[in-house]
């Protein structure tokens, strides 16, 4: 099997992806070590989070990421229509995530939780909100790609744009896959 020298998509997006991952890595590690100093506090407030919502969100993002994989597979076979459909399906799953997460935020803000409430909520809100913004940015990127795919802007020979958007979206998924167990489950 022929191996590639570069990952799929434009290398510029990968520089961006790596920078973003670096930020999340730093925040994840910071979370774990701050928890070390405040175990009781973290364990206590973790229970105020809605794990069922987080489950739905995890399933939504994984499914969405899977749809994007199918979209890339379709365009590699020159199927613009299929590519477009999978992409919109992925965006719909992203919207589902935003909706659920928005509900969680409404609940927490309603209870008067802010970034300054305590160390746990600081990390919970910082990490999830930063990720939340990435979901929205990812949806914007996917929508741009889907629109262009709908116009027949990609082909089996030239579809770097689809791969670029896909790589970014997988990153958004990847980050959540660590975030979910770390913030919602591990105690």
């Amino acid at each position, binding site marked *: 099997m022929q191996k*590639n*020298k*570069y990952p799929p998509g*434009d*290398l*510029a*997006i990968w*520089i*961006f992806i790596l920078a973003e991952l670096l930020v999340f890595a730093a925040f994840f590690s910071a979370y774990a070590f701050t928890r070390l100093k405040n175990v009781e506090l973290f364990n206590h407030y973790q229970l105020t989070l809605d794990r069922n919502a987080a489950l739905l969100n995890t399933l939504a993002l994984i499914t969405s990421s899977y749809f994007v994989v199918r979209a890339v597979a379709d365009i590699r076979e020159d199927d613009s229509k299929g590519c477009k459909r999978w992409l919109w399906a992925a965006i719909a799953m992203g919207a589902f995530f935003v909706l659920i997460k928005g509900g969680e935020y409404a609940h927490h803000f309603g209870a008067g939780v*802010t*970034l*300054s409430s305590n160390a746990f909520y600081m990390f919970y809100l910082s990490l999830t*909100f*930063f990720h939340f*913004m990435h979901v929205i*940015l990812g949806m914007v*990127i996917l929508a741009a790609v889907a629109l262009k795919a709908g116009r027949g802007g990609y082909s089996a020979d030239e579809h*770097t744009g689809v791969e*670029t958007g896909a790589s970014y979206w997988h990153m958004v998924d990847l980050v959540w896959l660590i975030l979910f167990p770390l913030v919602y489950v591990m105690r």
Partner: protein
Amino acid sequence: MSQAFTKAMARNIFYGGTVFFFLLFLALSLDTVSVLPERDNRANLTEAVVQGKKLWENNNCIGCHTLLGEGAYFAPELGNAFTRLGGKDGIMAFIKSRPVDGIPGRRSMPQFNFTDEQLNALAEFLKYSSEINSANWPPNVQG
């Protein structure tokens, strides 16, 4: 895949990334401004404090001193001068006692010939500054 990265994508990341992170910064700033009332000691922003801040600015005190660590590094930190100099009286006495021609061979604060009212305002301003929640900075009384 002859070209590793394209100008068009680099451009998109520049514009997209800038907007994205500026929005994030705005969101954090908005939160900051909304919680500042709990930290910035605004309840004690009396008329004297306001006058003191104006005097602080009009005499360019920041040109030698730091205040909460910002300014010049020629003279002591003043965010905790209220504690270090022993309250308002200590501050006023110190400013008042500076010799007009300085101290031979050493750094000296100029003599500003403040009135008693002005001295009081400055001391009030430094008291107010010392009561800002600065996350336990400076590390000790020496500033």
